[in-house]
């Protein structure tokens, strides 16, 4: 979940990511692009399909909204790609993300903030609208000292709020290079540091993404119209 390629601020190609995912024991990954690459969606899908077949790793196409305008643009075209992520950090955007049922993941709500950027009201909305909250390992990995401790504190607060109100949690590597991709056990262990139980942490890297993938398949079928509405 949540890996950037060379095509979207990242450093590695789709092939390199698929190869590393296989080495680390992942059955699938989600590559994230920004809406400015939406026009080249067909090309990206074609590349992903070929690499996925060659390496035997499922690769999903995700788009990440950085502001409300991009979010509205992506919501309108929700059926055309797999995952919709929202870049957290801005309170209005965090709120808008958890209010939108089309959104799959609110990524790092505490990004570049002194507070956690996420509260009980948002947690209730996230649960209601089935929006998962991301816990990004990269944020902790690339920082140090006071910044790292502040981020960890915010992540712990968010985990506590999510647990209390039953909002979904996902732990991701947030990698922008293959060398930032982490073993699933590392991510689960990171979850336990944030106050999750080992079962919750494992769920956050396995069954929650699995449920999302089910949802993606349903969403991309011809019967799906919008969240809660489908042709039977």
């Amino acid at each position, binding site marked *: 979940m949540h890996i950037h390629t060379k095509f979207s601020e990242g450093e590695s190609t789709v092939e390199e990511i698929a190869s590393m995912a296989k080495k680390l024991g992942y059955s699938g990954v989600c590559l994230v692009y920004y809406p400015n690459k939406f026009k080249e969606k067909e090309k990206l899908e074609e590349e992903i399909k070929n690499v996925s077949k060659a390496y035997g790793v499922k690769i999903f196409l995700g788009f990440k909204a950085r502001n409300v305008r991009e979010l509205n643009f992506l919501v309108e075209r929700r059926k055309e790609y797999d995952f919709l992520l929202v870049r957290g950090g801005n309170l209005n955007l965090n709120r808008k993300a958890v209010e939108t049922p089309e959104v799959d993941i609110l990524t790092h709500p505490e990004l570049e903030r002194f507070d956690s950027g996420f509260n009980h009201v948002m947690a209730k909305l996230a649960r209601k609208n089935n929006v998962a909250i991301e816990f990004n390992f990269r944020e902790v990995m690339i920082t140090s000292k006071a910044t790292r401790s502040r981020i960890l504190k915010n992540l712990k607060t968010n985990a506590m709020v999510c647990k209390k109100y039953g909002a979904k949690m996902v732990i991701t590597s947030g990698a922008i290079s293959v060398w930032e991709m*982490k073993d699933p056990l590392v*991510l689960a*262990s990171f979850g336990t540091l944030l106050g999750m139980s080992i079962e919750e942490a494992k769920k956050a890297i396995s069954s929650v993404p699995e449920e999302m993938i089910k949802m993606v398949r349903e969403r991309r079928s011809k019967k799906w119209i919008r969240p809660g509405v489908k042709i039977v």
Partner: protein
Amino acid sequence: MKKLKVLPMSLREKKRYVGFKVIHEKGEDFAHEDLIAAVWNTLLDFYGEYGVSNLSFQIVKNVWYEKKKMGVIRCKHTEVPKVIAGLGLISRLGDTKVTIKILKVSGTLKKVKEKLAIEAKRKDY
């Protein structure tokens, strides 16, 4: 010198062995000493001296597959997630970019060695 008498079984700390593999950039290399230094520095940075003392952490120096870059770490049985998360924070060894894959967690060194021996025969990476 007189040898210290070993603690009775009931008082000994329960331990776990974590077998790991360092996946690194092709064409780049690093020494085992670099890895040991990086692991200690990362854990000390992240958990502090007091935190690391609680991990009862040590690197098993005589189990190291140089060619496949695989090794074993020993720690307290309750602190395994902390050690694994700490290992995950290592992304560089000198100039070499690396990522760490956890191969096996076990209560006996024998089991971990068996797993490493199997992994050493693999040719896909």
